[in-house]
Every structure is written in C-alpha cells, then in structure tokens.
C-alpha cells in the first residue's frame, strides 16, 4: 500500500469510523466538556453540545462521585465501568462505559474518548432469565465437565440442599460416582440435547422419578463446557401409575380367580374378558374368547336385548347356557351394562354353575323321599295296629254275642267290623295314592280356575255344616304351569280340613276362605279357617304320616299328600295357627321353578319305587 493510499485510508477512517462504530462515542476535554460525539450518542443521550459529560450522560449538574475520567486523565489508563444514566427521553438507562485516553504526539492526554453501549435491554433480559431460572417449576442446574454443579435454581436448592462444590450425582442420587446412564455425559460428548428418565432419591429417602433434559451451554475450545439440565419430578405420576397398575392387578386377579364365571363383551358383542370359571362352564378351550356370533349361540337371548334402557340389568335364577360342545348347562345368569363416565363400554355377564346344586337338590329330594318312606312305614304299622285293634274288638264283641245269643251285641260287633273294613279300604286307597301317585304333569293353567272349581264343589257341603266357603281370587294372577289335578287335590284336602276345623267352632259362624295371590314372583294359594286352631303339639305333627285329629274319620294322609304334590311343583307349604282363632295353610310356588320343572319334564325323573 502506497503512502498516499495509506493517508487516504486514514482520512476516510478518521472521518467515517467515528460515525460507523455501533457505539455511542463522545470526546471530552480536561474540563469534562463534550467536544465531539457521534450520531449514535446523540440518538441515545440527546443534545450534547455545550454540555459537560455529567450533564449529557446523567442529566446531573455535579460531577460524579467516583469520576473515571479524572482518573484516566491522571494515569492514562483505559477504564471500563457499568454506569447508570438518563437517556434523551429522561428514562434511566444502563450502559457500559469504555474510556480511553487520546494522546497527542508528545504523549499528553488532552482528550478522552468515551464509548458506551446500552445495557438496559441486556439487564432486563438477565433479570427475566434469572427469574425464569430460579422460579421455573422444575429443577434446573448447570454442571461442568466434572459434573460439578455450577449453578442450581431455587427449587433444586430447596429440595437437594446446598450445592456448593458438590457433584450432581451426589446431590440427586446420593452416589459417590457418576451415573452410568448420564444424559449430561451424552451432551458433553456430542453437543446434542438428550432426554432420559432417572430415578433419584428425595431428601426423605423415598425414590424420586425424573424426566431429565440436558442441553449444551456455551462451547469452548474443548467442546461443550457446561450443560444445563432440567428435570421434572414425575414421582406423583409414577405413584398414580403404580396405584393404577395395582388396582388393575387386583381386579384382574379377582376376576380371574372368581368361582363365578365372568364374561365381558364390548359394544360389538365380542367377548373381551372371560375368566377361568367362564371358560370351564362354557367348556371353551380356545385361548381367544368367543366371537359375538358364537356367544349368541351360547348365552340366553335376553342378554342381547333391552339396549335402550340405561338401567338395564338381568337376573335369571335358573337359565340354561349352551356350552361349546352343545351341552346345556343350568346356570344362574345375571348381567349388567358396563359404563364409564356415562359412556357405554359393553356388557358383563355373571354365570353360576348350577349343575352341582341341581345334583344336590336331586339328592336332597331323594333323601327326603326315602325319609318319607321310612316315616310312612312306621305310620303304616301304626294304622294297621289300629285297624287290627278295631277288628279284634269287633270279633270279641260278636264272639260274646254269639256265645250268649245276644243279637244286639252281635249287631254292635258286626258294625264295628264293617266300619273297620271300610277304614281299611279307605286307608289302602289313600296310601296308594300317596305312595304311588302319578308324577305331576305341568301345563299352563289358570290358578284361579282351580281354586274356583274347588270352592264351587264344596260350597254346598260346607253350607250344610254351617260353614261359609268363600273364594278371594286376586284378579291379576297369570297362568302358570301346574298339574291341575294335583293342585285340586291339595286345595280339596286343605278346604276339607278347614271345614272340619270351622265346624268345631262353638259359637257357629264358621268360615273358610280360599285365596290366590302373587307375591315376589311366587304364586300363592291360601286356605284360612276361623275354626278351632291347633296347639303346639298338633302343629308339630301336622305333616306327619297318618297323623290325624279326626279320630276314625281321617286317614292322616291328606296334608302329607298335599305337601308331596306341592314339593313336586318345587314349592313349599307354610302354616300358621292359633288355638280357637283358626289356621292358615299356604302353598307357595316360585314361578321360576314351575317353569324349569315344566321345561325339564321331558328329562329323566325319579320314578317312585313300588311300595
């Protein structure tokens, strides 16, 4: 470069650099007067001409307490300081002041050049950053390459205590060595951002779960110098997750091990959950639960209906399900809609295998029957003894009459013999009908019709005995599968007992009421009298074979036969009685049992042994 060119460049610089540098530049003399300033300075601090530096910078009429210019005038050294002034709008501003001496050829400092750059924004940023750093609701720390914590925010310090000179692994995990899976290490290595899950230790020793993000912070000659780590405590989330998992495990194990078959279907009707008991009951061996179409073949049709109703549920005490092999299995079947926050998820069905119960029921019935046979034999012996007694007596009286030629006595004895012969005939008939009696044939029948027929048949006979026989039939009684002959026999027995009891009223006004009604899915027949009633002794024996309170008139088989027929209908008998007030005999027939007995009529039944 030639000298001319050099001097040309100098001139250009001297003229333009002053305006071009991105600083506020001003020149002051020894009197602190601003003698020159660039446009930046004027834009920032406003008018400077004729003003002293402290007037221009700080809008003050006094020199600064620690005047940097004075010192530089004295020692000729460059100074840098942070200053606070007033900008041209009268607002407080912050700036860095760079102050250097301008020396003339002799080395004397006549002027100082002052370069300022604004810090107001930077400081604001810094405050905001600090605030953010300190207050962000997660743990923030800066570590150096040795994993020493350089800085940590307030939340971190509050949780992990003083960080001074400590390593992050000591603080977070109470370790003595760096962790094996360290996100900061990765960031130091590749300068990238890394996210990982970490388990630390809370100050109380409980495990703390974190999601940690590590980012590089500043690069030096040897790569990343610092890493900022941000960690969010997700222990609470983890705890909830754990709770949820536990609840799930619990319910799953309850469902899996329940002895009740449990089956849940989705809205499309496909089975989603099927526990072991359900597998066994339905004999479903495949691991995959059955499809919607397959289920329709297996479960009762009612399970697939009644959708519109929100409170839908189902309880079939004696249903039949069809197992995979086609076998019909008796089961108690109940079902509910499955919902979550009002949204329908599907349906759940509960199946209770009734095979064993049915078996036990059969066995119990058999045992009862055998017990009844035993009782019958004992009762039969007694009845025969009584008959023998009558015959013996009749013969004795006839014998005496013959010996003495006493015709009246012969006639008396002969009558006794006749009566006992008739009794024998009646007893044998009654006994055969009890012991051998045909099995009930259940057909849909109007219960009121049977009750009406019995009342019609006995009304006149009762009237002749001074007893009023009344029918009180509930109007809403539905048809039921009944053996009408059997039920008629029952009501006939009860009505005839009732009339006998009502006849014994000393005051007259005897009354027998036959009622039908419906209660809790049971069909009820009731025969009530206002007769003599029964004391404890009689009540205890009333269903005993051959027990009779009617002297020679009764065979003692009426109530027994009645109870037998009722039991064959799956029902039971109740009785209530008070001496001199009357008795009530009640036949209760659960409708679902009537239905299932009628349905099972084709299946094998126990046939009574020949007596």
């Amino acid at each position, binding site marked *: 470069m030639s000298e001319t060119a050099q001097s040309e460049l100098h001139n250009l610089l001297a003229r333009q650099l002053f305006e071009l540098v991105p600083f506020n530049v001003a020149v002051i003399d020894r009197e602190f007067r601003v003698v020159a300033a660039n446009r930046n300075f004027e834009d920032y601090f406003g008018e400077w001409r004729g003003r002293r530096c402290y007037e221009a910078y700080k809008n003050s009429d006094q020199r600064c307490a620690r005047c940097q210019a004075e010192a530089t005038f004295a020692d000729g050294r460059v100074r840098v300081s942070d200053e606070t002034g007033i900008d041209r709008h009268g607002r407080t501003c912050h700036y860095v002041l760079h102050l250097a001496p301008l020396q003339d050829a002799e080395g004397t400092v006549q002027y100082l050049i002052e370069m300022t750059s604004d810090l107001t924004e930077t400081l604001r940023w810094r405050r905001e950053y600090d605030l953010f750093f300190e207050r962000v609701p997660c743990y923030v720390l800066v570590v150096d390459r040795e994993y020493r914590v350089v800085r940590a925010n307030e939340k971190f310090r509050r949780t992990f205590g003083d960080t001074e000179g400590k390593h992050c692994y000591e603080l977070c995990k109470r370790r003595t060595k760096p962790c094996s899976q360290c996100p900061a290490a990765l960031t130091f290595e590749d300068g990238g951002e890394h996210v990982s899950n970490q388990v630390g230790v809370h100050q109380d020793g409980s495990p703390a779960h974190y999601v940690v993000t590590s980012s590089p912070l500043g690069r030096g000659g040897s790569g990343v110098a610092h890493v900022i780590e941000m960690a969010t405590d997700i222990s609470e989330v983890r705890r909830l997750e754990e709770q949820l998992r536990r609840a799930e495990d619990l319910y799953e194990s309850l469902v899996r091990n329940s002895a009740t078959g449990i089956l849940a279907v989705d809205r499309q009707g496909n089975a989603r959950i099927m526990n072991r008991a359900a597998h066994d009951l339905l004999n479903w061996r495949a691991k995959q639960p059955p499809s919607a179409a397959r289920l329709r073949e297996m479960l009762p049709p009612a399970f697939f209906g009644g959708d519109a109703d929100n409170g839908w549920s189902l309880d079939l005490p004696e249903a039949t399900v069809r197992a995979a092999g086609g076998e019909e299995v008796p089961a108690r079947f109940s079902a509910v809609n499955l919902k979550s926050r009002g949204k329908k998820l599907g349906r759940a069905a509960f199946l209770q295998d009734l095979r064993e119960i049915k078996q036990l029921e059969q066995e119990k019935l058999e045992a009862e029957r055998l017990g009844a046979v035993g*009782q019958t*034999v*004992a*009762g039969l*012996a*007694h009845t025969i*003894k*009584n008959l*023998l*007694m*009558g*015959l*013996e*007596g*009749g013969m*004795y*009286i006839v014998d*005496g009459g013959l010996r003495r030629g006493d015709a009246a*006595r012969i006639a*008396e004895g002969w009558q*006794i013999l006749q*009566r*006992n012969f008739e009794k024998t005939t009646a007893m044998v008939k009654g006994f055969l009908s009890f012991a051998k009696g045909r099995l009930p044939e259940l057909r849909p029948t109007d219960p009121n019709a049977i009750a009406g027929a019995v009342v019609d048949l006995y009304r006149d006979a009762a009237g002749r005995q001074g007893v009023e026989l009344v029918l009180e039939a509930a109007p809403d009684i539905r048809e039921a599968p009944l053996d009408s002959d059997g039920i008629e026999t029952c009501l006939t027995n009860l009505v005839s007992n009732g009339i006998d009891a009502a006849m014994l009223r000393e005051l007259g006004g005897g009354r027998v009421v036959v009622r039908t009604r419906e209660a809790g899915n049971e069909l009820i027949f009731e025969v009530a009298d206002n007769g*003599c009633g029964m004391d404890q*002794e*009689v009540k205890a*024996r009333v269903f*005993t074979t051959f*027990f009779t*309170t*009617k*002297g*020679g008139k009764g065979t003692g088989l009426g109530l027994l036969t009645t109870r037998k027929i009722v039991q064959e209908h799956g029902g039971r008998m109740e009785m209530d009685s008070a001496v001199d007030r009357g008795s009530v005999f009640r036949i209760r027939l659960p409708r679902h049992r009537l239905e299932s007995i009628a349905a099972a009529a084709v299946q094998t039944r126990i046939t009574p042994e020949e007596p």
Partner: protein
Amino acid sequence: MTGDSRKYVLVVDDEPDVRSYLRSALEDAGFLVRTACDGLEALDSIRSNPPDLISLDLVMPRHSGAKLCRELRKDRSLSKIPVLIVTGHARDEMGRTDFEELTMSGPGVYLEKPVHPDSYVAAVCKLLGIEGPAVPGSDESDDLRQSLDQALSGAGRDALQRALDALRKK
C-alpha cells in the same frame, strides 16, 4: 264280683270302636265302665267321679293323654289313680316322647295296640291289685303271640330277627 266291690274304670280313647271294644271286655270281666273321647272330657269325668283306674290312649285331638297325665299328677287327690296306657304310638315319632316321659317318670303299665281282651283285663286287674278272672288264652301259644307282637312292633331289622328267632325256637 258283686255290688260295692265292683271297680270303676274310665276308658279314654278318641276312637269310638276302641271305646266299645274295651268297654265290652271290661264289662264282661265285671267292671263298671265309663268312657271319654278326649282328655278334656276325661278330666271332667274324673273330677266329678274319680275312677279306680284310667285306661288311657296317648294321642288324641284337643287334649292328649300325655297332657291329661300331667294334669292329674299336679292334683294330689287324683295323682294316686293308676293309669293304664293303651297306645299305638309307643315307639313312633308321634308318641315316643310322651310315652317315654310317662313311663320313665314312674312305675306304669302300658299295653301296645292291638290288645287282646284277656291281657287287657289281666293288666287292669294287676294294676288294681285284684285277682283277675282265669285267662283262658294264657297258654304257651299266647306267650308266643305276645313276644312276636312285641318284636314286630319294633319294626327294625333287629326286631324282625328276634321275631324269627322266637319262631325258630318254637
């Protein structure tokens, strides 16, 4: 037996035929007889004219024989009257409890139905402590009949075995 020395027996049974029978047997043996068809009627009769002996059935409607016995025991003047129990229920569900209560609680004599007229009269005489009429049927065959009767009324397998044994010995 004549006039005042005749003993008076009350026969209580709900079966009219049994009442006729027992009345005839006792009258033929020279007893005075009255009858009652249940415990209540019997109690009235006993109170108005106490008998020398009561022949009592156990299971009856209204007022059973067992109840009647309990009431008699409570009444000092009536508790001494001997009672002969004539029942068909000595061993079955209906009569066992009452029967055991009555026979276990004191020396009693009982007969199980059906009763032979001679043994009935003999039992009445024995309870009254008087000489009975000669019992024509009390020969060997009648003893066998009695023991068969006793064995059969037990109605169990053992009882049948005993009955068979009795026959075989014969």
